């Protein structure tokens, strides 16, 4: 919507948040301290949330902030602090020169392949439409409604099953993390 009225403004912010996400990710994987890494990952996720909003997925953007950055990353940080990580031996966990080189080569191959794949799968003629799809605009429930329609009709069973998945995860987490009582 914003791109209709302020195309330059929109484009600037798109590239800005994209750059933030990219730089944040690189910084994230190079931090030695787990706490720093987690905080940089939060930065990446926030930038991604902004990108979601710019791409017209406002609800997903909100969920990204709430669930990922808010809940999941907090759990990570919580675990890092709970285990009191940060011992010098643990800080030096990055692989050596050869490992990094090999990983870089594999990464290059992977990114090249992904690019080629995305280019061949989505032809260049398909560009981002100026407007969101008609069903998003026309949905009486607005942005949320456009998601709610497939979620609660077409994917109702899967949605219900996620509740069971979460229940199992909760129980599993409790059982695994519980201290063995003697």
């Amino acid at each position, binding site marked *: 919507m914003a791109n209709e009225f302020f195309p330059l403004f929109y484009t600037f912010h798109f590239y800005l948040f994209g750059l933030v996400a990219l730089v944040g990710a690189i910084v994230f994987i190079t931090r030695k301290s787990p706490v720093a890494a987690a905080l940089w990952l939060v930065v990446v996720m926030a930038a991604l949330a902004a990108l979601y909003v710019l791409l017209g997925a406002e609800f997903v953007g909100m969920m990204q902030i709430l669930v990922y950055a808010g809940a999941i990353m907090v759990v990570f940080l919580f675990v890092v602090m709970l285990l009191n990580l940060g011992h010098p031996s643990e800080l030096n966990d990055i692989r050596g020169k050869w490992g990094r080189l090999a990983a870089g080569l*594999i990464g290059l*191959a*992977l990114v090249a*392949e*992904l690019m*080629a*794949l995305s280019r*061949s*799968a989505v032809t260049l003629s398909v560009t981002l439409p100026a407007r969101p799809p008609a069903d998003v605009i026309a949905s009486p429930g607005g942005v949320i409604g456009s998601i709610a329609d497939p979620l609660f009709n077409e994917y109702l069973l899967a949605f219900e099953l996620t509740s069971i998945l979460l229940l199992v995860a909760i129980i599993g987490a409790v059982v695994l993390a519980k201290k063995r009582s003697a």
Partner: protein
Amino acid sequence: MMQSVHPLAETVARFVWWLPALPLIGFVINGALSIYASAKPGPADPSANGHDGSNIGHGSHATDEGNHGHDDGDGHDDHAPTPRHRFAGITSIVGPGVLVLTFGLAIALFVAMRGVEMHEPFVSTLFAWMPVGDLHINAALQLDGLSMVMVLVITGVGMLIHVFSVGYMQDDAGYPRYFAYLNLFVFFMLLLVLGANYVVTFVGWEGVGLCSYLLIGFWFSEKANADAGKKAFVVNRIGDFGFMVAMFMLFAHLGTLDYATIAERAGQFAPGGVVVTAICLFLFLGCVGKSAQIPLFVWLPDAMAGPTPVSALIHAATMVTAGVFLIARSASLFSLAPVASLTVALVGGVTALFAATIGLKQWDIKKVLAYSTISQLGYMFVGVGVGAYTAGIFHLVTHAFFKALLFLGAGSVIYAMHKAYHATRNHSDDAQDMRNMGGLKKFMPVTWTLMWIATLAIAGVPPFAGFFSKDEILGATFARAHGSTLADASLLGMSGSTVLYIVWVFGLAAALLTAIYMTRMMLYTFHGPNRTGDDARPHLAEAPWVMTGPLLVLGVLSAIGGWLNLPGVITDLAPIGPTASLEHWLEPVVGEATARVAGGGAHVAVSTEALLIGLAVAIAIAGMAIAWARLKPSALVAKSAAAPATGIQRVLENKWYVDEAYDAAIVKPTFAVSKSVLWGGVDVGLIDTLLVNGSAALTRFFGWMGSQLQSGRVGTYAWLIVIGAVLLLRAFARVA
């Protein structure tokens, strides 16, 4: 194929399949008894004390070594009578009983066939056996003049020999096993002659080979016997290869293996063409193996290691004549291939003479008869080779009579000798060596009389059976030398006429030798002083009636068998019986082929024919006279005291060293190549080291590589997953 209902269709011929079925039932019963007896040895079971020897007729003369190799009796030092097999009673009823029933059925079929006019064979299809693509092979039996003659010979002579075996084998530990094999043999033999196509015949062909192997090695606890069985089996394989190639070629060119259809389509072959000649030569290779002709005859003398009735039935009367039968059965093909036919005649003639020379100097009574059989088979091949198919089959029939009689007579002699030696606990002297016999006429008058009849028959003295059949073959050979298709062909650079004259001369020479060696055998066995030994002599006695009875029947048949096919030249002179009845009987089967070979011009004048007959009789009489005059039984000494032979006699005694030559030319090189190349190179090097151990090492290497992947380190797994994902994506990217 049969447009109208065959005249035999509603008669007893419906039950033709019972002919092979009955001996098969006998085999199953006797085999079950044998297996049961050895699985659950009873208290009175002679096989329970773990010795498998026999008490009688234990001939083990694969080698001409001195001692009679009987190891039996050692377990019976107290000389109590050997207990019979506990199932001997039931086997004695079942074994010969099924043959009696089969013979009865064969007679009924014969009567039914005489009652109708038959122009085409009666084929009884049991089931579709191999319907594969263009190949349609039925399990079908064929009844015509030829198979009827063979069935009568097999069941008739077979029945007599079964009865004889009851006496001969009575104390043998393997009594039910013996009759099981014998019944199985009759089953396969009937399948061979009744088969309506080459494949059924081939099953019978292989089956009789199997039974021959089993019965040659019947006393397998002695290595020489087992080796003789193996030798027969291996040599026959060479022939079977030829048979199979011939079948493949027949199917490739005619698209069928049924006899009736082949006879119809044989005209497709160009007369004297390469294909039909090749087919016939390959078929003949099969016959050479089965019927012990040069160069594959070496197994038959060794086959005498089996019990003597087996030698009579399988290795004289029936199985070894299967080759002659096969050529007569394939007459429609052979009559189109003069070169192949000449080959058959030449091989037969050479074999007849060659084997007869060896027969001159053998001391083992069964060996004499074995070489005599090879020689007589040669005559039969001369007969079917020159296109006188009826003459060949005629000699087959009469030979079955007199040679079975000779073998059974020899069996009777061996039985008596063995009993005498056994009674005196003499285990060193050979019960089959003629040097240990002599003068047996006094002790065994019945056997003596009957064997003289057989000897006169085989020597060709009128009016006994062999005279007519042998004379017919020689006469046909002489007649075919002019005007026939054979005379016009050429073989080995000689004209067909020359070849046939050579064969004829060979046949006459072999006839002379036959008369000599048979008279020699009779003289040494039955005449002159007895050389058995003073201890054993009082124990010599005639065999029981169960053995002499069959001899008597065969004696009658040997005497009057010639009446089956009296030549016209004799019935014109004296009307003593019907003229050429066998020829008329076989006319629908081989008549066309015979006429094709004869070509219309192959006839001799009556005066010439009479001259030929006179010549044959003169030769037979001369041979016997020579033998009688030159051989002095009184001058012989017992084997243990005999001096080794010298010169040509030694060569003959050692059978022209053919076995030694084969050993040096084929067996030893095969062994050497097998040992150094196949064993040392291929087996140890290639198979053991490279393939067996190599594949194991390769598997271990891959297993080791796989185990290296399973390091248990999560980091390694992550790397592998990512590498895999990259490779997979690459494949996807290429597809997309």
